[in-house]
């Protein structure tokens, strides 16, 4: 008898009574950010692009909580408004990766054989470029703009999503409930969308939360080298880039968006770790 050796790794467990600390912390960090992302322009004490030459490069003080930049714009307001940019960039880019990657991964994993081969080889070619290089390459084709950066980042991370989706699909294909579905004579579409897809979400959700982080960081890097968000918009990467010549005189211009970014990324990471703990008890550590 093989009772003990065959214990299945159940993908789902009942919701635990206690949430993991990381999840709680992550939500605690992200909730205010989300509020800011939605209500940033209303919360900001000044319009993010209002220049005031008389008060340029002001240190933090009662008028300007985080000081002003070289145009006399309020750094706090810009940082607040930048939240929307960053989060939207991260989430939208990830959404694009998922939108493109998940179907491809499903088809590759389910179809196997030739289809799989073709899709995966295309992904290999995409993956043979380092991510930022791919981003630059995609962006170099058109004049820079934020939405293009979002699309580029989305494309950059498609292969990872495809790989993950495919791997999970392949794994699920071995599962007996898929066999059971085939045995019933279910159509491919039904199996893909009703049997496999629901089981892909949990690991994908964990992965996506990390992807959002990567997307935010890559987006910031692209903006930093001038290929993402364009002035005068208030993107964090762009703000840090613009602040470079002034770091000595006015370090707050760079520190403020840097801190905001740190909080966001840590928050999402914690959320991801927490999600992993909740959704995917098999995994232990965070990577």
């Amino acid at each position, binding site marked *: 008898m093989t009772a003990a050796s065959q214990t299945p790794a159940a993908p789902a467990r009942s919701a635990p009574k206690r949430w993991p600390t990381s999840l709680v912390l992550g939500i605690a960090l992200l909730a205010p950010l989300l509020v800011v992302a939605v209500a940033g322009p209303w919360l900001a004490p000044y319009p993010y692009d209002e220049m005031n030459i008389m008060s340029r490069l002001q240190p933090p003080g009662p008028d300007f909580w985080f000081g002003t930049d070289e145009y006399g714009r309020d750094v706090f307001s810009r940082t607040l408004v930048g939240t929307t940019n960053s989060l939207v960039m991260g989430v939208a880019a990830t959404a694009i990766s998922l939108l493109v990657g998940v179907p491809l991964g499903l088809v590759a994993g389910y179809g196997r054989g030739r289809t799989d081969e073709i899709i995966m080889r295309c992904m290999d070619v995409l993956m043979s470029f380092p991510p930022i290089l791919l981003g630059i*390459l995609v962006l170099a084709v058109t004049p820079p703009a934020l939405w293009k950066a979002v699309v580029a980042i989305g494309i950059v991370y498609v292969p990872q999503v495809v790989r993950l989706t495919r791997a999970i699909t392949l794994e699920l294909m071995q599962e007996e409930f898929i066999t059971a579905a085939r045995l019933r004579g279910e159509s491919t579409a039904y199996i893909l969308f009703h049997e496999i897809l629901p089981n892909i979400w949990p690991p994908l959700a964990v992965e996506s939360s990390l992807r959002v982080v990567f997307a935010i960081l890559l987006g910031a890097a692209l903006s930093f080298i001038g290929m993402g968000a364009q002035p005068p918009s208030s993107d964090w990467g762009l703000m840090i880039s613009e602040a470079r010549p002034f770091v000595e005189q006015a370090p707050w211009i760079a520190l403020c968006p840097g801190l905001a970014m740190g909080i966001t990324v840590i928050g999402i990471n914690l959320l991801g770790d927490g999600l992993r703990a909740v959704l995917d008890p098999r995994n*232990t550590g965070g990577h």
Partner: protein
Amino acid sequence: MLLYTLTRLAYLAMVLVVMSILVFLVTQAMPGDVASMIAGQFASKEVIDAITVKLGLDQPLIVQYGRWAAGILQGDLGRSLVLEQPVAPILMEALSRSLVLAVVALAVVTVIGIGAGVLAAVRRGRMADQMVSGVSYLGIAVPDFFWAIVLVLIFGSYLKWLPTGGYAPLADGFVPWASHLVLPVVTLVLMLIARIARLTRSSMIDVLQTNYVKYARAKGLPEKVVIVRHALRNALLPTITVLAIDFGLILGGVVVIETVFSFPGMGRLLLFAIQRHDLPLIQATILIISTAYCLANLAADLLYAFVNPKIRHGMGNA
């Protein structure tokens, strides 16, 4: 193993061919053109046309690609249009500098990252673990360029200990050479260490829960032996892969860090080429970067296979 390597190499060649076509097409699709770039502000149309013809940019794409690819196969990476020099030496110089960066950074990451990861895994849930997690969160949370700026501010501007940009060849002496590397390496490493530590930690935790580690303990082996001989060896497998890939990434140029530290490596070369619309330079740079990246990936796979006896001894007939 040999067969496996050969197959992988052939496969790599295939990917590179497809990639080269892709690179060629993408670069062609870039807006602006090199002729007007060379001609400069307000050059007349005839001038631009003359330059276009001179550079052979008027020929059909296939012809241009064919010429380019044939050149590469003969070891000729082309001539930079802007710098009016052969691309190869420029590339090699940038690559050699990136290589220095990559090697030094990787050495630091390997030692510190793996050490921290193991420490965190072994002391899971305790102070050391929390600290490693905390510090590694800092490393991944804030983009590298932010750290770069902070480091420049602290070590360059306030403390004035270290040069904040540029590169000194080893010929200038060891100290200038090394001191120019410190800040870029530290910046790079901050993020990488965080990743490697987290990865090592999680795979170490996985391995520590395996039966063979439990069995090693059941043999009465001291914890140190259990961790080093039994756990670490297996836990390092994924880490090795990631390290090799990181090596490829750094080799291919860390655009942002190179920009902040004015480090004349592959990344800045590429950015420069793109800004100047220097097609041959763009193409060659991307090709080299991607090749380096792919080779590092391949090395990762081979290393993985080599370290893993299951693959090492099972490859021949697979």
